[in-house]
C-alpha cells in the first residue's frame, strides 16, 4: 500500500488510551409524538484491535448508537449529547466536512443489506477503487491493483472478472464481501458492522463473520458488531454489550457474559435461544410484553415492566451501571442481579403473588 496509509494509521494507532471512548452519549429525535430517546446515556470504551458486540432487540437503540458514533444521523430533528472520543479526539460535534476526513480512512461501516448498499450502476472495481483514489490519492492503475488485492483478501474467486461486473451479477454473500472490501480499502482503525449477516443465509453468515474476525486480526482493527442475534457475537467478539430501551444494561467479556450474566434481561435473551440438547418441539421461552415506548420510557428500570424479578424499587429508582465485585470489566445495571439472594427471593415472592411479568 502507499505511504499515506501507513502515516494515517500510525498517527491514530500510536496514541495511548482507548480508541473509542463514549461518555454519557445521548441521541434524541424530535417527533410529532414527542422526544424519542433512542440512545439515552451510554458510556463505554473500546481498545485498539478489540471487538465489541452490541446486542439488543429491535428498537433498543443499537443501530442509532453505531450511527451516532459514525456521525451518520440526519442533522434535522436530532439532538445529540455526551462525548464521543475517537483516538483521543472529540468527534461527537464535528461537522460533515471534518467527518469526511475520518470516514473511510479511520472509521468505516458495513450495512445490513448487501442488496441495496452497492450502487447498482457502478462496476465493483470502480466502487472499490473510488475511495482509494479520493482518500489516498492513488493513481487509476494503483487503485485497480489494490482493489484486486482487496477482493482476494475477502476471498472472492476470479477477482479480475468480478472487478468488471455490476452488483446485480453477484450473490448476496459475494456482495457483502465486496462491501467489506470497500470498507477496508483505506485501512480504517475502526469498523462498524450493522447487522452484517441478517440478510444472508446461515452458512454464508458464518463465513462472513469469520472473514470479519480474520481481517480484524490481520489489520489490527477495532470491530463493533451490531446484531440482534447473540449467536452471531458469541464466537466472534471479545466483549458483548447488551442494550435495552436506549440504555446499556450489561457489558462483559463474552465468556463471562454467557457464564455469569447479572442482568435478568440478558438471562432472558439467552434463555430464548433454542438449544441443541432440547428435545424437538420444545417451546422457546419468550420475553413477555413489548420493548418500552421510547417517548415515555418507564420510570425506574426500563426492563422492570417485563422483568419476572421486579420489585417496587425497580419501578421507582433507576439502577446505575456498576461493576461486579470480582471483575471490573463486567458492568451491569440491576438492583437485584441474577444470582444474588434478593433475586431468588423476589422470584419466589412474585410467583406466590402470581405476578406475571407484563
Amino acid at each position: 500500500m502507499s505511504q499515506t496509509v501507513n502515516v494515517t494509521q500510525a498517527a491514530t494507532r500510536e496514541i495511548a488510551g482507548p480508541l473509542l471512548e463514549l461518555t454519557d452519549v445521548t441521541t434524541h429525535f424530535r417527533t410529532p409524538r414527542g422526544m424519542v430517546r433512542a440512545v439515552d446515556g451510554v458510556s463505554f470504551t473500546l481498545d485498539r484491535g478489540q471487538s465489541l458486540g452490541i446486542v439488543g432487540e429491535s428498537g433498543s437503540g443499537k443501530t442509532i448508537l453505531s450511527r451516532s458514533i459514525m456521525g451518520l444521523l440526519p442533522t434535522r430533528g436530532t439532538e445529540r449529547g455526551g462525548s464521543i472520543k475517537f483516538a483521543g479526539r472529540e468527534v461527537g460535534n464535528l461537522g460533515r466536512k471534518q467527518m469526511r476526513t475520518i470516514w473511510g480512512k479511520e472509521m468505516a461501516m458495513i450495512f445490513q443489506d448487501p442488496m441495496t448498499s452497492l450502487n447498482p450502476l457502478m462496476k465493483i472495481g470502480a466502487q472499490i477503487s473510488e475511495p482509494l483514489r479520493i482518500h489516498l490519492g492513488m493513481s487509476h492503475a494503483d487503485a485497480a491493483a489494490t482493489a484486486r488485492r482487496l477482493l482476494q483478501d475477502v476471498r472472492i474467486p476470479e477477482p479480475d472478472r468480478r472487478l468488471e461486473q455490476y452488483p446485480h451479477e453477484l450473490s448476496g454473500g459475494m456482495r457483502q464481501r465486496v462491501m467489506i472490501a470497500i470498507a477496508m480499502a483505506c485501512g480504517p482503525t475502526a469498523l462498524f458492522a450493522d447487522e452484517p449477516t441478517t440478510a444472508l443465509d446461515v452458512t454464508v453468515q458464518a463465513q462472513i463473520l469469520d472473514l470479519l474476525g480474520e481481517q480484524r486480526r490481520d489489520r489490527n482493527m477495532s470491530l463493533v458488531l451490531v446484531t440482534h442475534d447473540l449467536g452471531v457475537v458469541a464466537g466472534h467478539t471479545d466483549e458483548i454489550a447488551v442494550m435495552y430501551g436506549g440504555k446499556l444494561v450489561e457489558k462483559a467479556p463474552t465468556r463471562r457474559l454467557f457464564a455469569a450474566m447479572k442482568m435478568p434481561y440478558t438471562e432472558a435473551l439467552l434463555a430464548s435461544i433454542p438449544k441443541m440438547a432440547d428435545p424437538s418441539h420444545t417451546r422457546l421461552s419468550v420475553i413477555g410484553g413489548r420493548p418500552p415506548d421510547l417517548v415515555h420510557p418507564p420510570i425506574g428500570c426500563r426492563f422492570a415492566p417485563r422483568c419476572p424479578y421486579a420489585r417496587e424499587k425497580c419501578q421507582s429508582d433507576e439502577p446505575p451501571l456498576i461493576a461486579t465485585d470480582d471483575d471490573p470489566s463486567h458492568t451491569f445495571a440491576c438492583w437485584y442481579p441474577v444470582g444474588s439472594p434478593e433475586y431468588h427471593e423476589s422470584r419466589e415472592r412474585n410467583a406466590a403473588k402470581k405476578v406475571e411479568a407484563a
Partner: protein
Amino acid sequence: MTATIEAPVVEMPADAPPPKDSLRKRLHIPRFSVLFSVLWLVGLTTLTLLANYAPSVVQSIMYPYSTKIRANGKAAKYLAPNAQNWFGTGKSAEDIFSHCIYGAKVTLIIGVGATLVGLIVGGFIGIVSGYFRGWTDRISSIFTDCLLSIPPLLLALILILRLDDLKDVYSWLSWCTRTWQITLTLGLVAVAPFARIVRAQTLTLREREFVMAARSLGANRSRIIFRELLPNLVPAMLTVAFTGLGILIAAEAGLAFLGLGVESPHTWGKMIDIARDDIDKAWWATVFPCLMLFLTVLSFNLLGDELARRFDIREASV
C-alpha cells in the same frame, strides 16, 4: 429421539410443459408498438434531414419548398391526392407531402429543444431541492407550484407575445427568433413537471443505503450527486423526457394553430390552421398534417411507455 419419521407420500403432479416463448420473443423482435415508433421516428427524421440538407437525394418524391404545383397551365389549388402529389396540394398550390416533411424539421427541433431546456433546468432544480431539502426545497417548490398553477398554453401565449415586443425594443434580443421563443417558452412550461419528478426520485434515492454507504466512506457532496444520484436518475428522466416530447410537440402545434407559429417553413400546426377553413372541399390539406402530428406524438408516447416498462417506473405523469 429415536422415533423414525416417515415422510408422507405426496403425489407430485406431472410437470407441466414450460410455456413456450412466442416466435417474436425467440427472434428478439421488439413488440409491434416499439417497432412502429422507432421506424416512424427514424424515417421521419431521416426524411426531413435529407429534404433540408441533401435535397437531391429525395428529389424523386419531393418538391422544393417553394414549388407551386401546376396543372393545365395554372396553379393547381387543392388538388386531390394522386400519384404525383401523394397528400394532394394546398391553398397556395403547394405539395402537402413535401411541406409535411419540411415542417417536421422545425417541429422536431422545437420539441427536442424544449425538452432539453426542461430536462436541464427542471433536473437541476429537482436534484438541488431533493438533495438539500429544507429552505432550498421550499423556495424551489413555490417556484414550480407557481409555474404549474398557470395554464401552460396561456403562459406560452403571453410569453411569446411579450418576447416579440421586447425583441423590437432591445437589439441584444435579436437572436431570439420565433423558433427560439417557442423553444424557450415551451421549455419553461416543461420545467415544473420535470423538477417535480426528479425531486421525488432524488428524495427516495438519497435515503437508499448505497448513498449512505458512499457517505460513510467519505464521499463529498458533488461525488454523491454526480456519481451516486445522477446515474440512478437517468431512467426516470429519460422516460419522462420521451413522454414530454410528445406533449410538447402537440403544444407547439397548438400554438401554431393559434397563430403563433414559425413563419417558414410552416409547421404542422400552421398547415392545419391555414387549411381548416376549406376542410369541406379539401379534407386532405388538414387531415394529413393532423395524421403526421398524431403518429409522431403517439410514437414518442409509446416509446416513453416502453422505457417506463423497461425501467419499471410507475406511471410518471407530465
